[in-house]
């Protein structure tokens, strides 16, 4: 059986669907969005949680992700492992 890391959405597709740029927490520093899918780490420039659109994002819905604030707290995989 494939691991979760292997079957999650392709990053390019995720970036296309991602609504991060509409989020009140978003700070544009030209980094790659779709933080939920990021392999490691969080945003280098988003430091303040001003709200989260992830629960309404098609990436999250399609992937059945169960976390939020990926930009500041880490990817779905990262937050799942943190538990």
């Amino acid at each position, binding site marked *: 059986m494939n691991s979760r890391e292997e079957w999650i959405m392709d990053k390019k597709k995720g970036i296309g669907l991602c609504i991060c740029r509409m989020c009140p927490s978003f700070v544009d520093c030209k980094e790659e969005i779709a933080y939920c899918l990021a392999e490691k780490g969080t945003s280098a420039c988003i430091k303040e949680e001003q*709200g*989260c659109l*992830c*629960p*309404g994002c098609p990436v999250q*819905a399609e992937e*059945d992700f169960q976390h*939020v604030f990926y930009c500041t707290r880490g990817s779905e995989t990262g937050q799942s492992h*943190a*538990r």
Partner: protein
Amino acid sequence: MSFTVPVEAKPDSLMPGKAWKCAVCGYISPGESPPSECPQCAGTGKEFIEITEKKTLRYKGEMFDVLLINGSSHRANNTGYLADLAEEVLREKKVSYRRYNISEFTINHCWCCYSMRDNACRYPCRDQLDDMPAFHDMVIASKAVIVASPINWNNMSARLKDFLDRLNCIQNLYLLKKPGLTEGKVVGIAVSGHEDGATKTAMDIYLYFQQLGYVLAPFGIAYRVHGAQFNTITDTEFLKNDPLVIQKVKGMVNNVVEMMRLDSEEKLKGKLVPVCE
């Protein structure tokens, strides 16, 4: 009376020095100590919280067994006393638990995303702006929930209803054909009031948990009211001196713990058919 949560309140006073906020109505009182009674809502001094920097409630996944919710607007009055009794049993039985007086927290009204489109309401909740997302995670993490409520107009408190309404994102997973996150967990309910409406209040609360797949503990509802012939100022004295209150609330909590220890959640995993709205 004990509290298991740090005191936190929104700093909405610019006054220098210490200030206290009534958790019931929001009245701000400056000074080294809180007033004995809130001049705005008549709450006792125990309802006042020292104003500190507001921090959103976070839950980082620490394991515990029982989530104890005091659903009253008054954290330290009659319903708070029932929650104190529940804590005594949980400590005696060496159960890991967390108690929250919801008047100390920010819980927004449910946005009812469900009523726009059924798949718009799903865990995690779209409203990440208040303390409720941490409560969602704690409801999912705990094995049992004990809810204490006053009777307000033959119903639970409005604050508690907001809390329970916000569990919709977990309940709605059934509709979306997603695995349930609460089925087989155990619930117990304690209700205190002045005169009538106790069983209705308890059943209203239970219906939420029934829809979430919870099992009501045997003898899992404890309630006690005083009487219409009395002034409400005497309710507290009555409840605190009535042995039936202790017997019923402590018995209910005992039953919740014993039921929880049967591990129905684990034993029923994958075997239940969700039948709910």
